[in-house]
């Protein structure tokens, strides 16, 4: 039982670690603390390693990957957002957007740690490889979409400051508009592809496993709406030449739907797609 105790302790610890991380990135963004600037990236990597260790331990103790419930998946989403951000920070050498993105990771991890339950016994179909692909694709998609939403939000904040000519900390610290837009756009394209894969696998595979499967399920409809929103956004960009503010608003609205789909629909409406 010591293994499950360790898992419980780590589950409590993870939001604390993310809170520390967010605090450091917040200090670096809103103030000037050279010491914080120097250590924040190292702390980020340490937290990612700790989080992966937590997930590995969870997998070992409960004998299944942590993808069987919404709150387990939220934890995986949190770490994959953190990893995605770490990649961006290393790649672009700009560490100023971390506060906003890691705030999202903190939110997901906190929700996960608060509500996650140990589930030693899970239905047999959750051991399927196909499920693994479905969930991985969905996770990658949601991670990318989350990143695109944060960058979209930052773009809009900076855009507003620059248009109003009231220059504040957002103007002083954020990278340029073009870079924020490119980040958001790239994340949307990546997320859209991953989401498409997840949906296709879901539609083909789920009816075979679930007796009560229905094409009118709120989860499926919600996901299709999200997919259509992103498709419309991408089309507006390609065909109508939309750029900047308008496409960023679409990215944010679509993310709002993603959030609804993950919370309200998953918890209260869906007939299948919840496993406990």
């Amino acid at each position: 039982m010591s293994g499950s105790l360790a898992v419980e302790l780590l589950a409590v610890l993870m939001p604390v670690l993310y809170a520390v991380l967010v605090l450091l990135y917040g200090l670096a963004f809103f103030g000037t603390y050279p010491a914080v600037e120097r250590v924040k990236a190292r702390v980020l990597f340490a937290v990612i390693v700790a989080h992966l260790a937590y997930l590995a331990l969870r997998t070992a103790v409960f004998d299944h990957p942590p993808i069987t419930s919404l709150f387990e998946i939220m934890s995986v989403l949190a770490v994959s957002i953190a990893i995605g951000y770490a990649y961006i920070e290393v790649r672009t050498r700009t560490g100023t957007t971390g506060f906003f993105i890691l705030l999202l990771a903190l939110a997901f991890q906190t929700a996960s740690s608060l509500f996650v339950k140990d589930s030693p016994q899970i239905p047999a179909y959750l051991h399927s490889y196909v499920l693994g692909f479905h969930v991985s694709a969905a996770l990658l998609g949601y991670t990318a979409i989350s990143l695109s939403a944060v960058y979209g939000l930052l773009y809009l904040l900076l855009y507003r400051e620059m248009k109003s000519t009231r220059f504040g900390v957002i103007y002083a610290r954020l990278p340029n508009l073009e870079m924020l837009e490119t980040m958001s756009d790239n994340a949307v394209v990546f997320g859209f592809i991953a989401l498409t894969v997840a949906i296709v696998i879901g539609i083909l595979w789920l009816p075979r496993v679930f007796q009560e499967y229905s094409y009118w399920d709120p989860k499926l409809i919600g996901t299709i709406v999200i997919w259509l929103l992103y498709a419309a956004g991408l089309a507006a960009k390609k065909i109508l030449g939309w750029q900047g503010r308008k496409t960023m608003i679409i990215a944010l609205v679509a993310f709002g739907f993603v959030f609804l789909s993950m919370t309200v629909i998953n918890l209260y409406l869906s007939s299948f797609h919840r496993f406990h």
Partner: protein
Amino acid sequence: MDLLSIGISHHTAPLEVRERMWFSHEEIAGALTRLKDGLFRECVLVSTCNRTELYGIGPAQGIDGTSLTKLLIDVKGAGGTVRAEHFHSVESGGAINHLFKVAAGIDSMVIGDIQILNQLKEAFALAKEADTMGPVLNRLMQATLHVGKRVRTETSICEGAVSVSYAAVELANKIFADLGKKSALLIGAGETGELTLKHLLGKGIGHVKIANRTRAKAEALADAMGGTVVDYDAIVDALRSVDIIISSVNSPSYVVQPEEVQQVMKQRWNNPLFIIDIGVPRNVNPAARKIDNVFLYDMDALGAIVDMNLERRKTEIPKVTRIIREELAGLLRWHNSLEVGPTIQEFRETLETIRSQEVGKHVNRFRPEDRELLDLVTKRIVNKILHHPTTVLKQGGEGNDHSNESILRVKTLRELFGFSGNGRDRHED
């Protein structure tokens, strides 16, 4: 530290006075040679458009701020315009503190000005050429440059544009990721416009175009800057292909209207358009600001950026002051350690002289077989007396935070035992 400094700066004198005290490189070399000749052991003269300052180590007897000021005014032959009250004079720690403040850019006219550090480097190099650098100034130079470097890396006092033309470049960098892939169009002539274009070129802007009512002017500027000329009547067409527009035309009415911009934005697939309107009266109808992906800024907006950056720089001053305090303490500790060694040496020698003299005087009263013992015993007494004071002095000399106390101890000891001058002079000779 026996450092004496006098100077004239924008704090103490207006431009017409300062300019009379400006020294060219040749004049600096001449003045330094003259000062080294019997007035200072080491000296350096800094002269920029905002200040002329002299720092001298080990002033000769009778040399003080007043006499030095007179001398410097005489060297420039500026007696009529420049008066003694235009100068400030500081000594030792105060002078170092002032030099550090200058290097840090908090004494500059535009706070955080980074040019000054290079000018200081130049001044020290000139002093080296004139052979007026010595061990103390060398160390002072290192500490000064270190202050400058730390201030730049540890604070953001040098960050943010503080001129209108740089503010435009700062904005461009907030809109575009890579200026190398962008192009700019300058409409009209004017100093600020040209300066902005130059800064953009300095930041590696991909291509520049120039339009002017007088085509010859545009051609001359395009030749000088390596750009191409655009017909003044075809400006609106040019808006389609450029990303940055700098407009400074003398025109009673708007040169560019919102409808035109709206039209152009469609043609350029909504690619962001950055317009810097530095014309007074304005060249671009401000209504164009409302169009998506159009970033239009006039003189007021650019001025707001400059003001904001200056304010932000001011908030960094406490950090800068802290760095200066740290470096000042370090320098004083070093300087103090210079005096501790020779002082201990002198202390030891003085007591040894007294001992050997007294032993010599009375040695005949002792039996020959006791004389060796007499020598030994008296030496032991002297060593025991010396032991504690030298230990305490050495501790102060090797650092710690008691530099001021230690300076006082050395000074007191030298006074009590009547050691002349300061220890370092002896040491160097």
